């Protein structure tokens, strides 16, 4: 007979669930609101979402304090794991989401914002991501991942046009395949360790001295394939440009940041110990993966004709750049990962918001996508501020100092240097140069070409105060990043180091 299990409530550390629960409650409350009174304006839902996210953030910041005092907090039979990187990544997730959600307040009406469910799904998705990062249990990772993904597929499709359905279906199908990979990889890990918790797997593998190296490698192969999909590493990246193009610019910007950081954290948990245990194969694979992802994505970005697709490829390249941190595996590198991503989120969200601002509903004759380069030509003459903002984000993405991403870049490259990855550091640097070309291309269009006749009325169609505010926030974050870097760096280092990465 089974013994009854006695669990003290205190040992459960229910508080570890608080941040996610806030998001879930928020989502449910919106469903309820809609039930009570339908047809409410989207601004209400935006604000409610914002409110809950704020609470969520507050809870996380509070956790941050706790973490700094007491270290990692485990909860619910050690399923929940609130360590430094979990808190950090959740903060980035929630903060990124807070920057995203006001983008719903466009001056034009788009289909998805007509649904209260949209906002509800959005909060569920955030909860999913939060679960995903706040555990080292492969099962919860999987469930959280799927919760978030399923919500995300729906959010994409809700944009309600042919391309967005196509994007959603593509994303979904490939996601299903990736889920299969993940399950299979987890299965093999379970087979050789008898556990589905990463730290235990690590311990057992180490105790076995990696005697089942073949199994480990097979498992890692499947896991790389699964996370390669999530982090859009070449050749698992193929969904990225299509999905970005198909979804609204705002959501595309969001996708380039939040899901990826969640993926990075899991990848860190999963691969870091292998890298440290001297699994040469993984180092080689990651090395190749990082280099190929960075370079190939850059090269493809060069030939794009649509700005959003270009930014999609550029996001892939940035993700590849950051993947290097996992390969390098030092505290400095992992700190760099978070720093980079925090800075990247401001800049990239700003860039995508600029696209969102410029979104027009009907394509003009001869226009094949939402944001062709030609649309931006001569923008400095018609809308200097907008052009300068966009130029700013492009420069930051290209890594021109003193704008945000530069600091992330030098820190990342610096960590590669100090870990002895000289060649990698060089490749990272040179890739930034290649990337310079396509960012510059947009600047060239905006600042050096004559405005297109007939487009005038279509610029800034979608602008509204809230969008402009977001752009302003992103711009300020991008320009004055230099002053934020030091505090960020200190906090992140503390969090990362104390989490053992």
């Amino acid at each position, binding site marked *: 007979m089974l013994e009854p299990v006695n669990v003290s409530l205190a040992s459960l550390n229910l508080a570890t669930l608080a941040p996610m629960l806030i998001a879930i409650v928020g989502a449910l409350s919106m469903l309820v609101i809609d039930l009570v009174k339908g047809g409410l304006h989207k601004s209400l839902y935006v604000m409610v979402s914002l409110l809950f996210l704020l609470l969520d953030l507050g809870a996380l910041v509070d956790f941050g304090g706790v973490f700094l005092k007491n270290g990692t907090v485990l909860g619910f039979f050690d399923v929940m794991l609130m360590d430094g990187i979990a808190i950090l990544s959740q903060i980035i997730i929630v903060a990124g989401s807070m920057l995203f959600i006001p983008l719903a307040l466009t001056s034009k009406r788009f289909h998805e914002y007509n649904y209260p469910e949209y906002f509800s799904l959005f909060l569920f998705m955030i909860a999913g991501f939060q679960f995903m990062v706040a555990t080292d249990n492969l099962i919860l990772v999987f469930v959280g991942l799927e919760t978030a993904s399923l919500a995300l597929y729906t959010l994409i499709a809700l944009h309600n046009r042919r391309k967005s359905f*196509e994007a959603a279906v593509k994303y979904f*199908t490939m996601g299903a395949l990736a*889920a299969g990979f993940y399950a*299979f990889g987890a*299965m093999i890990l*379970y087979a050789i360790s008898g556990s589905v918790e990463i730290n235990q797997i690590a311990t057992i593998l180490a105790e076995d001295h990696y005697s089942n190296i073949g199994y480990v490698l097979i498992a890692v192969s499947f896991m790389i394939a699964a996370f390669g999909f999530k982090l859009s590493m070449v050749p698992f990246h193929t969904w990225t440009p299509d999905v970005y193009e*198909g979804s609204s610019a705002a959501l595309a910007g969001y996708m380039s940041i939040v899901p990826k950081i969640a993926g990075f954290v899991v990848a860190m948990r999963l691969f870091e110990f292998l890298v440290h245990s001297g699994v040469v194969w993984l180092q080689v694979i990651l090395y190749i993966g990082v280099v190929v992802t960075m370079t190939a994505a850059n090269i493809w970005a060069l*030939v794009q004709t649509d700005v959003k697709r270009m930014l999609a490829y550029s996001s892939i390249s940035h993700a590849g750049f950051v993947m290097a941190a996992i390969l390098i595996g030092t505290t400095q590198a992992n700190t760099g990962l978070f720093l980079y991503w925090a800075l990247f989120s401001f800049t990239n969200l700003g860039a995508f918001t600029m696209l969102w601002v410029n979104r027009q509903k009907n394509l003009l004759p001869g226009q094949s996508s939402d944001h062709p380069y030609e649309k931006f030509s001569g923008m400095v003459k018609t809308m200097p501020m907008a052009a300068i903002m966009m130029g700013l984000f492009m420069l930051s993405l290209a890594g021109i100092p003193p704008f945000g991403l530069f600091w992330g870049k030098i820190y990342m490259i610096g960590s590669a240097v100090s870990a002895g990855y000289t060649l990698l550091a060089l490749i990272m640097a040179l890739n930034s140069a290649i990337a310079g070309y396509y960012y510059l291309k947009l600047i060239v269009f905006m600042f050096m070409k004559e405005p297109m006749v007939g487009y005038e009325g279509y610029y800034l169609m979608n602008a509204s105060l809230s969008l402009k505010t977001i752009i302003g926030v992103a711009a300020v974050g991008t320009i004055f990043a230099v002053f934020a870097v030091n505090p960020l760096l200190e906090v992140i280092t503390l969090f990362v180091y104390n989490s053992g990465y």
Partner: protein
Amino acid sequence: MEITLTHYLVLSAVLFAIGLIGVMRRKNLLLLFFATEILLNATNIAFAAISHYIGDLSGQMFAFFIIAIAASEVAVGLGLLIVWYKRTGKIDLDQMTSMRG
């Protein structure tokens, strides 16, 4: 002729491969979704087997959640298919190439 874990793993691998072939081969989206189910099921067998051979319940747990996930995926996937079908009248993925390059 004792059936060992290896047998199950091999079986799982073979089924997974069949699933992969299906995923790659199918152009009809609905049938493609079938193949993704096969992938997950293949894994489930292995999980159950491992669970059995090492006497641990976690594997069964994993399998259980995988089934839940598969079910949810079907719901969302079908939903997506329905809107796509309503909009285009096709569920052939060769028709879905408006974005490329």
